[in-house]
């Protein structure tokens, strides 16, 4: 884990909804693993005050460049979207744990909702490179919001749209349900996206007796485990911190209310 001021090397829209930023990440900062995140700060101001957590969407060890897929939501992402190549940001990481809690699985279905796509593609590429079978399921509201397909080049990917305007008509869990049972047999599910999607994926995994790893989002102040702001409840009643005990959890250990 390192705290560094680094140069942005690219920053561009990849869909009407998503942007992708690339930035220097020297090997000696620590190699980012899929599922891990970093805390980004736009400097020169105290508003926004806190850093924001973002999941890595890829890492190129040769160029020593990391990537992240994001969506403009508020002040911090607005300011990030205006950063041009050559300008700097501050990054602290890699933080948190990674997908593959229990060792690298043999067969994986990786499910993405919204900007969850970034870490899911990172994980899928990593798993495919290690020789495991992997299938990506990515959900979008409508066809116009689907990013450049080059993004998942080389990965078996099913696109779902809520309005049926392209690919599978329905959400990602509807799609899982539509798959032949054999396709999922013994598969590990990985999921990243909004809470309701994670909950639905978890329930589906329970029904089918599958292990499901979810990447959880919670408001974070520190990202370092000290403020105790980002807790979620486990099924056993313990409060655990998303930033240091997660963000990846076996969905079976969490309390889903």
């Amino acid at each position, binding site marked *: 884990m390192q705290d560094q001021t680094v140069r942005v090397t690219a920053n561009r829209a990849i869909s009407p909804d998503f942007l992708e930023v690339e930035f220097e990440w020297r090997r000696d900062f620590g190699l980012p693993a899929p599922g891990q995140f970093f805390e980004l700060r736009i400097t020169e101001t105290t508003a926004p*005050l806190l850093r924001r957590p973002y999941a890595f969407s890829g890492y190129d060890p040769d160029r020593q460049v990391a990537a992240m897929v994001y969506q403009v939501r508020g002040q911090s992402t607005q300011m990030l979207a205006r950063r041009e190549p050559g300008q700097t940001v501050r990054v602290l990481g890699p933080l948190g744990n990674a997908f593959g809690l229990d060792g690298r699985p043999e067969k994986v279905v990786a499910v993405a909702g919204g900007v969850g796509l970034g870490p899911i593609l990172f994980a899928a590429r990593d798993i495919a490179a290690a020789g495991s079978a992997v299938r990506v399921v990515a959900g979008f509201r409508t066809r116009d919001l689907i990013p450049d397909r080059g993004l998942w080049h080389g990965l078996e990917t099913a696109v779902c749209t809520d309005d049926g305007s392209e690919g599978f008509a329905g959400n990602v869990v509807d799609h899982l349900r539509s798959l032949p049972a054999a396709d999922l047999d013994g598969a590990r599910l990985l999921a990243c996206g909004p809470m309701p999607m994670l909950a639905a994926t978890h329930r589906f995994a329970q029904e089918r007796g599958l292990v499901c790893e979810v990447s959880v989002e919670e408001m974070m102040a*520190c990202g*370092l485990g000290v403020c*105790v702001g980002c807790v979620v409840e486990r099924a056993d009643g313990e409060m655990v911190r998303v930033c*240091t005990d997660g963000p990846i959890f076996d969905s079976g250990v969490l309390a889903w209310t």
Partner: protein
Amino acid sequence: MDLSVRIGKGVLKNPVGVASGTFGYGQEFAQVMDLDKLGAIYTKAISMEPRRGNPTPRIVETPSGMLNSIGLANVGVEKFVTDKIPFLAGLDTATVVNVVGTTMDDYCNVIKRLDDIDTVWGYEINLSCPNVEAGGIQFGTDAAMIEEITTRMRGVTEKPLMVKLSPNVTDIAEMARGAERGGADAVTCINTLVGMVIDTARQQTVIARKTGGLSGPAIRPIGVRMTHEVSRAISIPVVGIGGITNTDDALQYLLAGAKAVQVGTWNFVEPAASQDIAAGIADYMARHGIARIDDFAALLDRRKDG
């Protein structure tokens, strides 16, 4: 030049500490900074029993600030002794334990449990809790109650005892006088201001418990003003806190009358910031010919240029 600060029977090697609730128990920050550069680590609040804390969301950002409603989640005094003290004991910096409770006995019991441990340097008493014996009014908003609880705690320890003041009062100097009368060795000024943020799309308060404590640069002018007021009302040292991000901010507190300072929320933004502030203060003292921390008090508004 002497950076040390005397508080009661104790001495801090330099005036810069890290605030309760913003630094955990120190361990997490060892990766990004040199903890031995700190004058003190004020621990997360410790209560007799472990506490789960409040439901989430516990945190929301505000303009140049944040609200928190952690609810004093902590491991409890026993686990603190077994799991946290050993790491803190290995550091060359004072461990100040931030103490909470819901009755006066609670507070005293935490201190009694810790007082024999050599590496516990002293205590900081967090009074922004409801007093269940007094119908839930906060310990920190009534000068007589502050005096009483301080007197009781004074009875169980000779170690440095700091009382942390709430800014949510009409007259903070009066609260400070209560602490002084009760036998406190110092007061910490200030804790968070009560605030609320509403999510207008969901028509709900963002914080699950509705209100949270406002901290960060937004409150710095209030902290500096209260430090100025309090340091002129009492003769025990004031530890200044609220919105400190760098040396200049810390110097504002020292010039206002504080003898020591704490960095809080800013630890979340620049985790290593606190380690450089003591050096920054030393540098300023050298440039301005200030021999010791006590000499800051006389500098403000001498209007040498007027």
